[in-house]
């Protein structure tokens, strides 16, 4: 039974944590892709920027959390979302809009977004340094140990406070995005524009507003994803390219331009990563005596070592591009 608990701790919980972070990141990427038709490479650094804003605000007002009864970084998150959304709109005005006005091909916008990602990286690392920092300053990460009601399970299932916050925030973000896209006027206009920009413009939709709204949502969600990642582990300013690949893989797996697909894709990629680095010997050891004599279990039976984790999203990306380039939910733009 303890092996099963180990499995739950290391795969089910860890997988849903990474899955939700990738999902929130991938929603932003996929929205930008469906409205502006280019892969936005600066998204991972926008996530880092959001987390950095949270870190700065937490350093500035460390006592706020105790008043509300939540960790300070979570209280500061809405403010950081606003700041990141402003940054995203500003970046669009300064760098992408002139390029769009020139009528360049999408790939030029991609290169432009790589330039932006380098600028953000440089600025963040100039001010934050390159080492990892914890967002919990002067507070303690609460750890909940849930004992299972079985005789054989002596080890508890472990969930930390940031993980619970993460699940709640993910569900909130997904539900509110769903309501926004399906019920509100702006959301419907956004969907119209992602379907057919010319038709949307002809029917009187202000495309500039839609673009700005898309950036606000993408920036806000990027701040959420970055903060959740930094809460779960630590704030690392140099993650960007390692985050970018799983997020793009998630967006493409779900079908580009498909927000619900991006959520599914995020969980697919997250669980694939944790399943691939999980050491399966742990689960097989209890049933080893059923195996024949000559079959000896190796000590490490993980598909890839932790250091090769980045291979997993790449493999998924390649597989989906080979077999189903439109993604599992049939994206609109390929």
């Amino acid at each position, binding site marked *: 039974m303890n092996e099963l608990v180990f499995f739950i701790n290391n795969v089910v919980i860890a997988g849903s944590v990474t899955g939700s972070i990738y999902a929130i990141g991938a929603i932003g990427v996929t929205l930008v892709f469906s409205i502006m038709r280019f892969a936005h490479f600066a998204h991972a650094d926008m996530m880092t920027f959001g987390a950095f804003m949270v870190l700065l605000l937490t350093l500035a007002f460390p006592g706020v959390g105790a008043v509300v009864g939540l960790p300070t970084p979570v209280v500061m998150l809405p403010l950081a979302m606003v700041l990141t959304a402003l940054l995203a709109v500003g970046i669009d005005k300064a760098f992408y809009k002139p390029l769009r006005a020139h009528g360049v*091909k999408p790939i030029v916008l991609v290169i432009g977004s*790589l330039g*932006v990602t380098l*600028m953000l990286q440089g600025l963040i690392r100039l001010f934050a340094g390159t080492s990892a920092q914890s967002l919990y300053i002067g507070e303690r990460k609460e750890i909940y140990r849930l004992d299972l009601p079985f005789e054989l399970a002596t080890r508890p299932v472990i969930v930390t406070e940031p993980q619970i916050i993460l699940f709640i925030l993910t569900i909130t973000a997904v539900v509110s995005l769903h309501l926004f896209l399906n019920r509100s006027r702006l959301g419907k206009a956004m969907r119209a524009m992602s379907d057919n920009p010319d038709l949307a413009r002809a029917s009187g939709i202000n495309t500039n507003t839609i673009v700005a709204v898309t950036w606000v949502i993408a920036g806000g969600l990027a701040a959420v994803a970055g903060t959740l990642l930094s809460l779960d582990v630590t704030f690392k300013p140099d993650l960007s390219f390692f985050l970018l690949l799983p997020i793009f893989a998630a967006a493409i797996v779900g079908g580009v331009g498909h927000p619900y697909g991006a959520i599914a894709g995020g969980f697919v990629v997250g669980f694939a990563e944790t399943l691939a680095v999980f050491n399966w010997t742990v689960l097989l050891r209890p049933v080893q005596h059923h195996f024949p004599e000559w079959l000896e279990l190796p000590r490490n039976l993980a598909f890839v070592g932790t250091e090769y984790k980045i291979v997993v999203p790449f493999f998924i990306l*390649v597989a989906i*591009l080979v077999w189903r380039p439109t993604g599992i939910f049939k994206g609109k733009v390929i």
Partner: protein
Amino acid sequence: MNSPAPSPAKPTTTRRFPVREVILFGALLVAILGVYAVMGAAYSTRMLVEASCYAILALGLTIQWGYAGQFNAGVMGFVAIGGFSAMLFSVPVNDAFWGTELPGELGRVLLYLIGSVLLVIGATRLHRFGVPKKLRTVIAVVLAVVLYLVVLSMLRGVTGEIQSRAGFIGGLGLPAWTGWIVGGALAGSIGYFIGHICLGLRSDYLAIATLGIAEIIKAFLKNSDWLTRGTATVSPLPWPTPGPSELGFTLARALYLSVTAALIAVIFFLLHRAYHAPWGRMIRAIRDNEVSAAAMGKDINRRRLEIFVLGCILMGIGGGALASFNSLFDPQGYLPLNHTFLVLVMVILGGPGNNLGTLFGAVAVYIIWLMSEPLALFLMNMAVYVGEGVFGWEPPGNLDSRALQARVFVIGLLITLVLRFAPQGLLPEKIKHHD
């Protein structure tokens, strides 16, 4: 590629005097002479050799981006593969490995690997023998997973043994240029794999996939201690020319420079011929208007694959030359900034699609890049001095590593500005117009 498509220049029948080229290269020459005067001959020659290696990389990228409009965001990976191959071929033979039974063990595992790959390929063909397609897929997947785990655990055993007993497998003791050639071939085959998957799809996907493969190659080289010694680094790598111990720094480096310059001259000549040949016209036709090129009966995906692989081969060769010259193989030294984005800036600043412009961009940007390191540190120290004096600010300890991040910002700014204001670069591609 809309943006680099130039506004139609006046069709000229007479050959105009290349004023712009002469001025730019004259300025470059003055800059190089200035560096020689200030920094001394040995340092400046080193700079020129490195710039020439970067020029090979830039030529590789200019045929991908400039000729064909494909964006490769993972130059670093191909450079690292070239460097690895140069290391593997040129480093002296390690008797602690070859003298034992370990090579046989490793060979056995590789044979098992080949055998299992063949077995899995065979399983995917099972439907020819009347096995239902769904069942075939299940069999193939299960077989692949099981065999993968078996081979992987064998490989882990052998490589762990190699690492503990022999350190790493060492090199082959061959001349460095063999490593460069094989490095080009390896980079080309990886490029073929990536290009085969991505080139028929949206151009963004190629950027994502190359970015990913570059990080994977780096992770592999960094963590395969049995093959590359990982973070312990391998040095020295032998040079294809007599080393500094025989000739002194300046002369040895000048000799190396002559090798890379000859390499560039050959590549440049071949590319020049290819560009003006029917093949080059076809590539540009595909870049500028895919649909009409397809309507003319051109096999678009195949031509794209050709040019992508060609660019990757050049990057592999350039990476090999760079690693041999540094005489050090350090997988952690491969950074996206130094080996991907710097090359990108060279190409888009110099002029994508214009070989001469790319050469100019490579040398000019590399000089600026090298000189910017002391400049960034100097500016940061000034800022600290002012900050301490005026505001009583306590500077953090890791200031030097942070100051270098300013260069990341500048490279990013440069990319966005060039794309916005000079999308054709300093020496634009010359388009012939026939009225």
